[in-house]
C-alpha cells in the first residue's frame, strides 16, 4: 500500500499516457469489430441489388454498376411461383412464431413467478432441471419427437413446431422472467394482501403490470428463437406449403444454386422482422438477458 502511495506522483504522468493508450486501443478494436460485423451484412445488401450476371464477375463490382431491385420484386410478387412460395413461407414463419410467443408467455409467467417467490420443496431441483434442459441439443430429441408427433398426428402441421418451440423456449423464458420477479419487492404484494387481495389477485393486479418489461423481453426472445429455428422445421415438415422461411429458403436455393442476388435478398428479408423487432425493443431484450445471468 505504502509503495503505491509513494510512487503515486510518478505514476500520475505515466498513467495519463497509459490511459490514452488504452483508449486508443479500445477505439481501434471497436473499428475492427465494426468492420467484422458490418462488412458481411453490407456485402449481402450490395449483392442483393445486383443482377445475376453482375454478381458473378471477377473481380467483383464493388459497387453495383446498375443497381436493381429485381430480386426483391421477384420474391414479393404474388404472381410468379417464386413470390408465391416466399410469401407463403413468410406467412408460415409469422404464424408459428407468433403462436409460440403467446403460448410461451402464458406458460412461463406463472412458472417464473413461482420459482422467484415460493420456497416449495424441490424448487431448486426443478429450476435446475429447467436450466439443464437448455443444454441438450435438438438432434437428441429429433427421432423420438418425430415418433411422438406421429403418434399425436402432428407431423407436417405447424402444431408440431409450436409445441416443440414452446418446450425449448421455456427454460430461457422462465429464467429471464424470474430475474424480473426477483427485482419486484415482495412488500408490494404483501401490502395488497393485507388490503384483502388473494395471492392470485396480488399476482394479476400488482406483479403482472410491474413485470411488463420482462414479459416483452421474453416475448421478443421467443419470437426470434422460433423465427430462426431450422432443425425441427427441417425434419418435421416436408410439404412445400407448410415450410417456414429458413427451410423454405434452403430448399429453394439448393435447386437454384447460382442465384446469389436472390439468395441475398431472401436472407435480407428473412432478417428484417427480427432485426426491426430487436432494434425497437432492444432495451428490454438486453436487460432481460443480463438480469437473469448477472443477478441470479
Amino acid at each position, binding site marked *: *500500500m505504502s509503495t503505491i502511495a509513494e510512487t*503515486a506522483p510518478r505514476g500520475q504522468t505515466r*498513467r495519463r499516457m*497509459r490511459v490514452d493508450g488504452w*483508449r486508443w486501443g*479500445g477505439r481501434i*478494436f471497436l473499428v475492427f*469489430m465494426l468492420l467484422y*460485423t458490418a462488412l*458481411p*451484412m453490407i*456485402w449481402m445488401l450490395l449483392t442483393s441489388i445486383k443482377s445475376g450476371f453482375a*454478381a*458473378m464477375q*471477377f*473481380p*467483383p463490382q464493388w459497387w453495383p454498376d446498375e443497381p436493381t431491385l429485381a430480386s426483391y420484386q421477384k420474391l414479393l410478387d404474388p404472381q410468379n411461383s417464386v413470390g408465391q412460395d416466399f410469401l407463403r413461407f413468410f406467412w408460415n414463419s409469422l404464424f408459428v412464431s407468433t403462436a409460440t410467443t403467446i403460448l410461451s408467455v402464458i*406458460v412461463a409467467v*406463472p*412458472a417464473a413467478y*413461482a420459482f422467484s417467490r*415460493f420456497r*416449495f*420443496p424441490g424448487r*431448486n431441483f*426443478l429450476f*435446475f432441471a*429447467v*436450466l*439443464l434442459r437448455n*443444454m*441438450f*441439443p435438438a*438432434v*437428441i430429441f429429433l*427421432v*423420438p*419427437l418425430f*415418433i*411422438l408427433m406421429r403418434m399425436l398426428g402432428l407431423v407436417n402441421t405447424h402444431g408440431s413446431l409450436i409445441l416443440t418451440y*414452446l418446450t425449448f423456449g421455456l427454460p430461457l423464458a*422462465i429464467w429471464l422472467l424470474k430475474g424480473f420477479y426477483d427485482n419486484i419487492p415482495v412488500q408490494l404484494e404483501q401490502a395488497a394482501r393485507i388490503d384483502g387481495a388473494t395471492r392470485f389477485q396480488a399476482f394479476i393486479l400488482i406483479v403482472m403490470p410491474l413485470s411488463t418489461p420482462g414479459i416483452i423481453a421474453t416475448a421478443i426472445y421467443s419470437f426470434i428463437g422460433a423465427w*430462426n429455428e*431450422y*432443425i425441427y422445421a427441417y*425434419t418435421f415438415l416436408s410439404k412445400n406449403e407448410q415450410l417456414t422461411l*429458413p427451410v423454405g429458403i*434452403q430448399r429453394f436455393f439448393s435447386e437454384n444454386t447460382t442465384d446469389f442476388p436472390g439468395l*441475398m435478398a431472401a*436472407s*435480407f428479408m*428473412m*432478417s428484417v422482422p*427480427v432485426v426491426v423487432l430487436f*432494434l425497437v425493443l*432492444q432495451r428490454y431484450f438486453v436487460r432481460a438477458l*443480463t438480469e437473469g*445471468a*448477472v443477478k*441470479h
Partner: protein
Amino acid sequence: MTIVTGTAEARRRLQSARSGVLRRVWEHRADYAYVLPAIAVMLIVIAYPIYYTIELSFFKTPPGLQLRDKIYVGFDNYTNILTSPVFWKVTWNTMIWTLASTFISFVLGFGSALALHRDFIGRGVLRAILIIPWVISAVAASYIWKWIYHSDFGVIGAVLVGLGWADRPPNFIDNVTTVLPSLIVVNIWREFPFAMIMMMAGLQTVPEQLLSAAKVDGASAWQRFWHVTFPHLSSVSTVTILLLAVANFNSFIIPWIMTGGGPSNASHIWITHIYELAFGRQLWGVASAYSVLLFLILMTLGYFYVRALSGNERKEGSA
C-alpha cells in the same frame, strides 16, 4: 373406535414429523400449480425422448426396416463407435470448434464490452450494430458467408488477389485444412455479441467507488482492470463461457448449411455427424448411442454449470 382413531392420529403425527419433506410438499401444494404447466409440457417432450433414445441405443436398425423391427445388440453400437476412426476425427473437430469458438467469442465480446463501457457519441448505435449478427437467423448468416467465401466470386478471395497476396482466389470451403477455421470465423461472428451483452451487464455491477479508490491509490489502468474489475466479473464470465461452450458444442446450422460436414468429414462435428447417421444413413441405433454419449458429456458440463450458478447464489446470499 376412539382408541383406533387416537392411535391413527398419533401415528400420522409421528409420520408427519418424520417425513417433514412430504408435509412441506403438502403445505406448498398450491405453489406447484404455477409450475405445473411448464413441467407437464416438458415431461411430454423431454422425458419421453430421453427414455426412447437410451432404449434405441441398444438396438440395431438396418436402413429400410421399420423401427419396430429393431434387433437387440447390447453394447455393440457403443463399441463400434469408440473403435471407429471417424468418431475420433469428429471428436477432434468438435473440440477445436468448441474451444476456439468459445474462447475467441468470449475475448472479442469482453473486449467490445470494455471498449463500449465508457460513454461516447454513437455508442448506442455501435452497440446495436454489433449485436445484429446474433439476432439474424443462422441460416441467413451461413448463406451470407458462403457467398463471401465463394471459390470463384467470393469477396475475400477477390480482396486477397487484389492485394497481391494470392494468385487466384483461395478455396476456403472445399479445402480440408481451411474449412474448419473458416466456419469458426462465421460462428464467432454470430456468437461474440452474446458474450458482449453479458459482459456489459457484468461491468455495470463493478462498484464505481472501488475503481476510483484504486485510482487515487495510484493503480494503473491495467492494475485497476486486473485487480478490481476482473475479479468482480469472475462469476458472470464463468456463466458466459459455459453458456457459449454449450451452445457451440451443440451447433448444427452453420456447418450443416455451409458444408454438410465435408469435405471428407473435415467439418463434421458431433451434432452434424449424429444427424447424418440418423436421417441420412438411417442408422438410428448408432445415432442414439452417440446421443447417449453426448448426454454424458453434457451432464458433466451441466454439473459445472449448475455449480457456477449456485456459487453465484451463495455469494449473493452472504453479501
